[in-house]
Each structure stands twice: as structure tokens, then as C-alpha cells.
């Protein structure tokens, strides 16, 4: 029974998914209720998460499922992003006329999948979680069925993701073949010498994971999917799957294969540098904001990977700090996107922001803060995120990575500045609507203040994260 108590969050999510499905089938026009109920269940789960002590370090179900500080923290992040996505998207969905009951249920499904991924301590469990979240995401990407781009996004994501899942599964089987187990702990114990099979297996799994977090050179799907999906789904794409995949990265690389760091470190450094540089350069030419966010998220993933490639606890912690701050910035950025609408039509090109500061001074001010923070200019939160990453990178004397990373922030600053230029220096357009839901305003205020005032309390987040010790 103790075991069940520990996985109560997962159980509650599963139960509410089933209940809401049945409820939705029998009651007509119930999307609104289901939407609210799923937010409610996520909130309950969050409360439950805090109810369990974070400091547990327990292996469940034949050591295939792990509840520890890392998993609790990452699950909380996932839950928070799920809640925020749901509360700010209902109005958007209504206006786009795609407010159906499946939406929130699918989000719950993928959150459940992410939970399984985050806690997995076994290749098979991990794969199950991965597929659960991916299947839900395929459908979500093409949720706007009547829209050509949205269907294209879903299909593209499905095909490419299936390919990468195949590679990943092949890697799993290689590792199983060479170490005779799928459990991370047992692999760690039995792995005694360098075997090429294992290295090959790691490479395949890294490819699969890199695809999920859209690291270069496995990023091709991201811009199209980000652009085509409904904006609220894009927001979800930009936040939740990254958290889960990052956790798997940490667990997979640092538990069974920490001794083979020489083998995978080079790969991670390459992925990181390629993503940082490519994300910065490719975003320059974009005109659509959602595509631009896709490229910028590629760049940001590069920084996260830089922290992971270091091979120390500080490196892991800096990556987690980075992704947490990145979530806040993304939330703010998308909240602003949701506010750019006129007569029930959303706008998403950079040109549409032209002269925004004239008619919407507060909205532009928040965008200014968020964009400068994304560019990593002090004293905003984005600077601290990068600062911790480079602090841990330089500790291991990886100067090349640090210098390339920082120089690509200069390139990246260019396209963030370009948006600010459009907002502040260009001629104004017609006014946009001001009748936003209170939740949208709240989430924008919340994230902006968090970013702006982070420097006053810089220790809180770091203290929480510093209790994550993997090695």
C-alpha cells in the first residue's frame, strides 16, 4: 500500500482521465466543465505532490520506478506548466472554435506520460511513458483539424517522431543485449568495460531524446510544428515535453552511464554548440513569431545541454535552473501572444507588433522585459540562468563551449532586439482588443514580475535545486 501512496499523483491523473472521458461521452456540451475539472484535478495533484516529502529516495516496482527529489521537482514543474496552459487557453480555444472536451483530456494524458518518463528507472518504463506523451501530443498538434497547417504539423510530428522512437527502441535493445538488463541500476552495476555495443546504444538513445527536445541536428520538425499547432498547444510543446525529456537525459546519462562520460560528453557538447549557434542564426530571418519561438527554443535547449554535458552535480543543477527560468519566460511570451488579437482573430507575425508601445504600454513593457531576459541581459532572470550554466561549464575548463555559447547569445540578442525595435521604434497599427481574461493577465503579470525581480531573491530557486544530487 505504501507504494500506491507514493504514486498517488499518477493514479489520480489516470482516474480523472478515465472519469472525464466517460463523463464527456455521456454529457453533451460538457467541454467547459471538463476543462475546469481537469484544471481542478491538476491542482489536487500539485497539492498532493507537496504533501509527500520531496526528499524521498525510493525505488518502486522492482526498482523500475523512482521517486526522488529530482522526480518530485520536475513533476511539479510539469504540473505547473500544465495548469498554466489550461487556464490561459480556454478562451483562445473558444475563439478558434476548437474548444472540445478532448483537449484537456489529451493534455492530462501527456502529463501522465511525462510523469512516467520523469520517474522511470528502466528503459521499458521510460519508453512507455515516452509513447504515452507523444501519442497525446500528435493529436494535440493537429487539434485544429480544419486548418491545413495544423494537420500538417500533426502528421509531420507523428512521422518523424515515430522514426526517432524506432531509433530509440533500437538503442534500448542494444543496451539490453550488452548488459542483460533494462533497469538503470542493474546496468550501472553490470557495466564493467567499454563495449562498443553499449556506446552504440547510447548514441541511438541520445538521438531519440535529442529529437524530443529538438536539439540540432534533430530539430527539423520544431519550426513547422510550432507554427502549425494551435498557439496554446505550441505553448505546451515549448514547456512540458522539454522538462520530461531533460529529466530522462539526466537519469539515463548520469545513473547507468556515468562511467562512460568520455563517450557521451563529446556528443552532448556537439549537440549543445550546434543548437546554440543554429538557434541563434536561423531565427534571424523569421517573420512568424511562433516559428521564431521554435528557433529560440532550439537555442535555449543548447544552453541546457551545455549544463548537462559538464558531468557534475552543479552542471545538472544549472540546467534545471535554466529550464525553470526558461519556462517562466515562455509563459510570459505566450501570454503576450494570446493578447495580440483584434475582432476574434489572433495575429502572429512580427509585423503585427509594430508600434505596440503606443497603444498598449504595459503589454509592451512586459514584452520588453521578457525579450531582454530571453536575450540574457542582466539584471533579468534570463541572465542568471545563463550565468549558472557558464559557471559550471567554466569550472570544468570547457572554455570553448563557454565562449561559443556566449558569442551566440550576442547573435541571438539581434533577433530579440529586432522584435523590440518593431514594438518600440516603428509606426503604430490599429489598437488590439483589451478584453483579456483575468487569468491571462495574471499569468503575464506573474511571469513578468518573476523575471524582473528575480535578482532580489536569487537564492530561492538555486537552494531548492541544489538538493538534487544525482552523482
Amino acid at each position: 500500500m505504501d507504494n500506491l501512496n507514493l504514486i498517488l499523483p499518477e493514479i489520480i491523473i489516470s482516474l480523472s482521465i478515465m472519469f472525464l472521458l466517460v463523463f464527456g461521452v455521456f454529457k453533451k456540451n460538457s467541454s467547459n466543465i471538463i476543462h475546469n475539472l481537469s484544471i481542478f484535478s491538476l491542482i489536487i495533484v500539485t497539492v498532493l505532490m507537496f504533501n509527500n516529502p520531496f526528499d524521498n529516495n525510493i525505488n518502486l516496482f522492482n526498482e523500475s520506478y523512482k521517486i526522488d527529489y529530482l522526480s518530485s521537482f520536475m513533476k511539479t514543474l510539469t504540473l505547473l506548466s500544465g495548469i498554466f496552459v489550461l487556464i490561459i487557453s480556454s478562451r483562445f480555444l473558444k475563439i478558434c472554435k476548437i474548444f472540445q472536451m478532448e483537449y484537456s483530456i489529451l493534455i492530462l494524458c501527456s502529463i501522465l506520460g511525462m510523469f512516467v518518463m520523469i520517474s522511470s528507472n528502466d528503459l521499458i518504463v521510460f519508453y512507455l511513458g515516452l509513447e504515452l506523451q507523444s501519442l497525446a501530443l500528435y493529436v494535440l498538434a493537429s487539434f485544429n483539424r480544419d486548418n491545413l497547417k495544423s494537420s500538417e504539423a500533426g502528421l509531420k510530428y507523428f512521422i518523424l517522431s515515430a522514426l526517432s522512437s524506432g531509433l530509440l527502441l533500437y538503442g534500448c535493445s542494444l543496451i539490453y543485449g550488452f548488459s542483460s538488463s533494462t533497469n538503470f541500476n542493474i546496468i550501472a552495476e553490470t557495466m564493467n568495460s567499454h563495449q562498443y555495443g553499449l556506446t552504440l546504444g547510447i548514441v541511438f538513445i541520445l538521438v531519440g531524446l535529442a529529437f524530443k527536445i529538438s536539439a540540432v541536428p534533430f530539430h527539423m520538425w520544431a519550426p513547422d510544428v510550432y507554427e502549425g499547432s494551435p498557439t496554446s498547444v505550441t505553448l505546451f510543446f515549448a514547456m512540458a515535453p522539454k522538462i520530461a525529456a531533460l529529466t530522462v537525459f539526466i537519469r539515463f546519462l548520469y545513473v547507468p552511464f556515468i562511467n562512460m562520460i568520455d563517450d557521451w560528453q563529446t556528443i552532448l557538447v556537439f549537440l549543445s554548440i550546434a543548437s546554440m549557434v543554429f538557434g541563434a542564426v536561423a531565427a534571424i530571418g523569421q517573420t512568424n513569431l511562433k516559428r521564431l519561438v521554435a528557433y529560440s527554443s532550439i537555442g535555449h535547449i543548447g544552453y541546457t545541454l551545455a549544463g548537462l554535458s559538464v558531468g557534475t552535480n552543479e552542471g545538472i543543477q544549472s540546467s534545471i535552473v535554466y529550464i525553470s527560468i526558461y519556462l517562466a519566460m515562455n509563459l510570459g511570451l505566450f501570454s503576450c501572444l494570446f493578447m495580440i488579437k483584434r475582432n476574434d482573430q489572433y495575429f502572429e507575425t512580427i509585423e503585427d507588433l509594430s508600434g505596440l508601445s503606443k497603444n498598449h504600454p504595459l503589454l509592451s513593457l512586459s514584452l520588453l522585459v521578457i525579450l531582454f531576459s530571453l536575450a540574457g541581459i542582466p539584471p533579468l532572470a534570463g541572465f542568471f540562468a545563463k550565468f549558472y550554466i557558464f559557471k559550471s561549464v567554466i569550472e570544468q575548463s570547457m572554455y570553448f563551449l563557454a565562449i561559443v555559447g556566449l558569442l551566440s547569445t550576442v547573435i541571438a540578442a539581434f533577433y530579440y532586439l529586432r522584435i523590440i525595435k518593431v514594438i518600440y521604434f516603428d509606426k503604430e497599427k490599429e489598437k488590439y482588443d483589451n478584453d483579456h481574461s483575468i487569468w491571462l493577465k495574471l499569468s503575464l503579470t506573474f511571469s513578468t514580475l518573476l523575471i524582473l525581480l528575480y535578482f532580489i531573491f536569487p537564492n530561492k530557486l538555486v537552494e531548492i535545486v541544489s538538493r538534487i544530487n544525482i552523482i
Partner: protein
Amino acid sequence: MNFPILSSLILLPTIGALFLLFFKDKDNSNTVKYVALFTSFVNFLISIYLWFLFDPSTSSFQFIEDKEWLKGFVNYKLGIDGISILFIVLTTFITPLCIVSVNSTIKVKLCDFLIAILIMESLMIGVFCSLDLVIFYLFFEAGLIPMFLIIGIWGGTRRVYSAFKFFLYTLFGSVLMLVAIISIYWLSGTTDILQLYEIGIDTKYQNLLWLAFFSSFAVKTPMWPVHTWLPDAHVEAPTAGSVLLAAILLKMSGYGFIRFSLGLFPIASELFTPLVYILSLIAIVYASLVALMQEDMKKLIAYSSIAHMGFVTLGIFTITQQGIEGSIIQMISHGLVSAALFFCVGVVYDRMHSRLIKTYGGLVLVMPKYSILFMLFTLAALGLPGTSGFIGEFLILMGAFKDNFLVAVIASSGVIFGAAYMLWLYRRVVFGNLTNKDLLKIPDLNNHEKFILWFLAIPVLFFGFYPEPLINTIEISVKNLIEMYNFNLNMGMSEVQNNG
């Protein structure tokens, strides 16, 4: 000292800016202006009081504030010595004048402009009193945001290009400094400047670290060949923006050279002195020649800034008492004089909406008061004895002659060039025949402009005749800096020899 006077100096303008936020959407431009002016003036009084409290007879840092900030890593540490106090007073002195000047120059979004200026003031004061590398970097970089907006929103026709150039050049320089700062943390275990002064930095890494810091300061100074952002930024920025840029932002790098390059990396500084000499001489001679050819008044003054900052870097790296004192006084004096010159250009620009020299000529007939003040600042810019400009250049050249005769001779030629382009500018604008009939209609200085220019003229003349207060304030600090420099240099040299 319990009252955190430095923190309040930093915070007060920001609080004023926050207060201004409440005035948004309302069209009471006078109230807004008075609030901003009041805040910055109070800040000026506090800084004067600070100078009064400051004890110039000791070389140690004063008014130290030390609070834990990033746990176990960076402390929020502030403190001032004789060198920083002058820059703080300069900052708080220039800012109210900028705010007075907005009357005629800023037409749109006045409130936002004042907020940007006040936040800028906070950050600039922060740069000059931070005693931790990370805190310094934070203030140094954060200043980019308001300056970018000042140039971009209220600037001239090519403002977007200039704002981007300014931002990206400076950011590019600074990121390498960030790498160096983090490396110093891992090499020495702290980023606290006072502790670093004591334990020194591993001699093996000094050269690379020095170069990383240099890349940032050289862009900001600006030294040849990375100076090209400055003329663009100056020309396009509104008057108050140009003034802040020339008077204070450029001084951050000179301050950085003294505080960090000399203080932390003596061996590297010794090694790279020829490099700095050559770049400074190129800056002096080249920028002066370019200034001679300019047709745009603001551009001319921008190039003269580059030449003057060339003197400053030259003086700093002579590493003599006179040279460094001269550089500091030159920076203060240039802060006042270049600010005044930009205001002078602003005055005629507001009337004629042209910065081209050929638009003017014969101004003395229509604007006699303006001509007198402009004359004074022209003479101060070329370093006439009796103005503050003379003291700085004289001391720098003295230091340079002590160190290297040839360098000093070439640098002296810069003084002659300086006289040439400034006097020629003055002749073309103020004297000569009044050919442009539109000039007949323009009025002489109004009260605001008179106020600004006289307030700048007083210290220029005062310190020209009586530089004692300045020299007294910095003397002990500079002496201590040089002693520490020589001590660390000898220590490092013997260490290198032992290793070799």
C-alpha cells in the same frame, strides 16, 4: 557607518522612476519633469554630502556595504575610494542637467524618457561603487537596456541602425569579460575585488584574462579600431542621450582599466602596455584627423571624444602618479566639457534642425551669449590653461614623457590637432558672414539653456584654476594603486622566474 548611503544613492533614482510610472497616461508633463528633477537633484546633494564625508587621507575603501547575495558565491559589496567618488559626483551632477534639457528636445513620451534617464543614473552609480566583479558586470551590462531605448525611441533618422550597433558592439565586448569573471572565480575562489587585490591572480592566466577585460573596455572606451559605434550612436541619440553617453558611459571603461586591468593583472598590463600605447596614439592622431574633416557638428565632437579618451588610456598605462591622476582629471573634465559641447550643439539644433556646420556661420551676431559660452567650452576642449581640460592633458603628457619620449611627442601632436579642429569648428559656426538668412530669426539662449551651460561652465573654470580638490581626493588612492601594482608586479615576476 550604518546608514547604507551608497545603496540609497543607487536606489533613489529607481524609486523616482517607479514613482513616475504612476504618472503614465496623464498629460501633466511639468509634474513629471519636476519629480524627476527633484529626485536627481536630491541624489546630487547626497553625493556632494558623501564627498564631504569622504576621508581623502586613507587609501582604504570607505562606506563599505557587504550583504550576501548569491549564496556562497557573490556578495553585494559596495564601497568607494578617491577614484570612484569623483565619478559618482560627476554622474549625479550631469543627470539633473540632462533632465533640465528635455524641455526643448524631447517631444514625445516624455515620461518614459525620464524613467529611462533615471534608471540609467542608478546603473551608472552602481558601476562606480561596486566592489565585486559580478555586481560590476551586472550594472555595466544592464545600462545597455535604457541606452538602447533612449537612442532607438528618441533618436534621429538612422536611430535603429545606431541603436543596434551600440548594443551589439558593447554586448560582444562584454561577454568575453563574463567568461573572464567566471574564470577568475574558479581560479581564485572569489570575485570580491578587495580579496582579489590581496591574493592576486595566477600569473599563468593573467594575459588571457586581461585581454578578455580589454575587449570589453576597449569597445566601451572606444579605442581604435572598435570605435565605429560611437559616432553613429552620438549623432543619432537625442541631446540628453549623447550627453550621458559621452560624459559618463565612456568613463566606465577608463574606470574599469584603472580598477581592474591595473589592479588585478599587473603582469599582463606591463606586457600589453605597448599595445595600449599604440592603439591610444592611433586613436589620438587618427580621430583628430577624422574630426577635422567632419561636416556634422555632433560627429566632430564624437571623434574628439575618441581622441580625448585616447589620452585617457595613454595616461592610465603610463602607470605613473601623474599619468593616472591626469587621466582621471581628464575624464572628469571631458565629462563636463563634452556634455557642454553636446548641449551647445543641441541648442542650435533645436532652433535650426540641422547639425551641419555649413548651415551656420555668423552666429555671434544673433546669439552673443551663446557664442561666449561656446567659446569657453571650445577652449576647454582644446586644453587651454585655466580650464579643467588643461590640467588633465598636462599631467598625462608629463606622465608620458617620464615613460616614453616618443609616445609623448606623438601624443602632444594630438593637442595641436585638437586645437585645430575645435577652433576651426568654432570659426565656421560662430564667426564669418551670416549667409543663411534663416539664422536671423533665431533667439539667443533661453533660461533653461543658460542654466545648464553656466552650471557646466562653473566647474570647468573652477577646476581649471584650482584643481586641488580633485587632486586631493584621488592622490592617496592613486598612490596606493601604484604601490600595489608595483608590489604585485614584482611578486608575479619573481614567481614567473621561479617557475621558468
